[in-house]
């Protein structure tokens, strides 16, 4: 089981801020494919991953990154702080 978090408009499209996901995915990319195949709202949110950023265990990383042993994966648009 892994915690999956969504922020900003990704959260709005998927409709929830956080969920627990049971998955065999070993990379972020594989996790995204699994989620997209679930429901239309996921397919929509992840339709263009180049517009998204991902953090694994609160560290920014690439979509090719491993999620084996990860506790938490978060998806969000590019940051706009400052």
């Amino acid at each position, binding site marked *: 089981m892994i915690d999956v*978090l969504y*922020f*900003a*408009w990704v*959260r709005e499209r998927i409709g929830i801020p956080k969920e627990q996901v049971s998955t065999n995915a070993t990379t972020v990319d594989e996790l995204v494919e699994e989620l997209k195949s679930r429901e239309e709202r996921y397919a929509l949110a992840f339709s263009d991953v180049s517009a998204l950023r991902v*953090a694994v265990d*609160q*560290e*920014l990383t690439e979509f090719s990154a491993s999620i084996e042993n990860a506790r938490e994966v*978060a998806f*969000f*648009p*590019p*940051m*706009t*702080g*400052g």
Partner: protein
Amino acid sequence: MAVRVQDEPFDFGVEAEAFARGRTDAGAVVTFTGIVRDTDGTLDRMVIEHYPGMTERALQAINDEATERWALKDSLVIHRHGELRPGDMIMMVATASAHRVNAFEAAEFLMDYLKSRAPFWKQEFTADGSAWVASKTEDEDALTRWEKQK
């Protein structure tokens, strides 16, 4: 070398004064403050979402790197989340160094990284509805300046 992420307003004058006061080790103090703009008078409020836990880690990492690269005597990062109104202060950074070039560069570095690497997202509310602020290519591009230098 403090980092603070908070919902409450902060007092820029008090923070700036406390940061600079009585230093005899650092001749140069630079501050940057970001303020909610309302260029065309239509903004009702801004709401800033963040990623609790990761936000503090990201800011601390950026701050640590600035401290090391510019041999800062001190630094401060404050960033608000939650609801803000036009004219409200969103965030501030402050840097103290022996020399002005270091204080300026470190403050610019902190701002550039904070913009594109700290997990904050701004949403603007007007009478017409709400919209997420889009990230700017120039903000991402600003980071290359610091990579080349290293």
